[in-house]
């Protein structure tokens, strides 16, 4: 048990070091993420101005005021910072294609666990660098959060939801990457996933403004737990029984994707070793 924990720590440490090699790229990448915020704030301003007939303050879209909308958007930025996995699926597919995956068949190390630790390291480095600009942007935008800070219990649920969002994102994209065992190229598949994810996770707009039957659709899909659900918790839109229920469903999806990626990996390796590496 101790040996295993030590292994994890060393993998994590080495992955952290590796991430830090690319300081410049990282800083730039992190800063560039904040540019879309400005355009989004102006976009919603224009939308609300049109809806409210010139008065942004009076306008209301499905229960969202302009301030609510911007607050929601800022929160999905955080959700996505946890649940998005740039390069994961394509990286796994590439490793399958160029044969690097053999390493995980030959050495006593598990691909899914190894890459998870890598990803955690990746995220940790990202948060460490991004926390300052994030804090700055949220400070500038503090007036959009009209309801203020949520209570401790909600905050705890919010964090739990973010962490599960990260893990669902990881295991889901891992599963997509593992499709590479069957189709050598997964980039177009990944593109379709990204496209759906952009709209149906709530990244683009809050999912509760959707009319039927779309609202039912996003409810049964796992995508909403990647962006919408954590943000909705923070904004106090889900509480009590709904909150507990939502977290339980999120946990169920997480377990599902852990199992699913495991099955995919086992079958993929079987196929790979059957067809000849």
């Amino acid at each position, binding site marked *: 048990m101790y*040996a295993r924990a*030590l*292994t994890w720590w*060393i*993998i994590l440490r*080495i992955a952290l*070091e*590796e991430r830090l*090699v*690319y300081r410049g790229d990282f800083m730039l990448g992190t800063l560039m993420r904040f540019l879309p915020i400005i355009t989004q704030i102006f976009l919603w301003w224009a939308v609300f101005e049109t809806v409210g007939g010139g008065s942004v303050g009076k306008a209301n879209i499905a229960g969202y005021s302009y301030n609510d909308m911007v607050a929601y958007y800022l929160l999905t930025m955080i959700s996505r910072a946890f649940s998005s996995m740039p390069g994961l699926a394509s990286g796994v597919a590439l490793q399958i294609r160029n*044969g*690097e995956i*053999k*390493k995980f*068949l*030959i*050495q*006593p*190390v598990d691909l899914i666990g190894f890459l998870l630790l890598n990803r955690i390291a990746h995220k940790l480095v990202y948060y460490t660098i991004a926390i300052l600009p994030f804090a700055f942007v949220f400070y500038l935008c503090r007036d959009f959060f009209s309801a203020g800070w949520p209570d401790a219990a909600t905050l705890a649920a919010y964090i739990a939801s973010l962490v599960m969002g990260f893990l669902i994102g990881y295991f889901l994209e891992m599963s997509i990457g593992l499709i590479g065992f069957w189709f050598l190229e997964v980039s177009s598949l990944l593109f379709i996933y990204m496209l759906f994810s952009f709209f149906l996770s709530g990244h683009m707009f809050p999912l509760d403004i959707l009319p039927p039957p779309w609202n039912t659709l996003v409810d049964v899909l796992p995508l909403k737990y990647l962006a919408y659900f954590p943000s909705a918790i923070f904004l106090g839109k889900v509480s009590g029984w709904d909150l507990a229920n939502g977290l339980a469903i999120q946990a169920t999806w997480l377990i599902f994707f852990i199992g699913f990626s495991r099955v995919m990996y086992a079958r993929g390796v*079987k196929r*790979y*070793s*059957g*067809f*000849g*590496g």
Partner: protein
Amino acid sequence: MAIIEIEQLAKSYRVYQKKEGLRAALTGLFHREYREVKAVRGIDLTVNEGEFVAFLGPNGAGKTTTLKLLSGVINPSSGTARVMGHVPWRRENAYRRRFALVMGQKNQLWWDLPALESFRLHQQIYRIAPDQFEQTKNELTDLLQVSDLLKQPVRELSLGERMKMELTAALLHSPEVLFLDEPTIGLDVIAQHNIQQFLKKYQEKRNVTILLTSHYMKDVAALCKRVVVINHGQIQYDGSLAGIVDQFSGFKIISLQFAESESFDDLERYGQVLEVQPPKARLRIARAEVPSVLAAILDGHSIVDVAVEDPPLEEVIADVFSQGDDKEKDKTTRQESPVAKR
């Protein structure tokens, strides 16, 4: 004691037959034709503990496929293999901690980090005790003369240095069985020589069992007492390197140095003339005729120096490979005629 036991091991791949042209590409979307490639067809081999065995064979002969089977990367179509009592393709951790595979063309180290970090990762993955890790690491890097490069990012190392680091990484957990797939590919003569020397010393000291594939006869001649020639997925020869020459080459090369004023025009009558550079000449003579031809030459000419040698190993091996090709052709023609089949 047998450490590797292989019986009737076979592996076929199904390869998608892509036809030329756009139209064929479109039909290929719906209906694909596959061809079966028999990479390994029924290999029997026993390797004892501490043996250093070379796999020789042309590209696509099945050498790498055999190594992949033994390291558990692929499953066989039929047959059995046991390495230290384990079935490789079950991929048990207990087995994976006891062997290593080094591929000359594949990189296992972390590209942007110093090699030392990759070594530490291996220490954890393979559960190597800290003091043993230090000791093995120092021993290996001293032998390979790369101790002072440990803290340099791997991407800044030369190909030879990187290969040495790869070897170190693979040997940190003191594997009992080592598979080397062209470990000296692309290296210059000096780096090749260094790696050979290292492997030789290491193998003698640790008595590990090593299977090596290489296209460099120098590697093989320097390292392996036993040579297995694989061609078309089958074992064509299994024995000593010198034995290959005895078995497959019916010729010897006679090098002659003539006294001044000797004429060279009648050498054809002794055998095939390979080279004439007065006052020297080289002849290719059938092995059985060497004594009589030599006597005749010495009798008819005034000779300053003479040497009888085996033909270069590369040539003999090339002959062996092409013999395999001929047999293969015979077999396919026989299969095609139904009468001959019975």
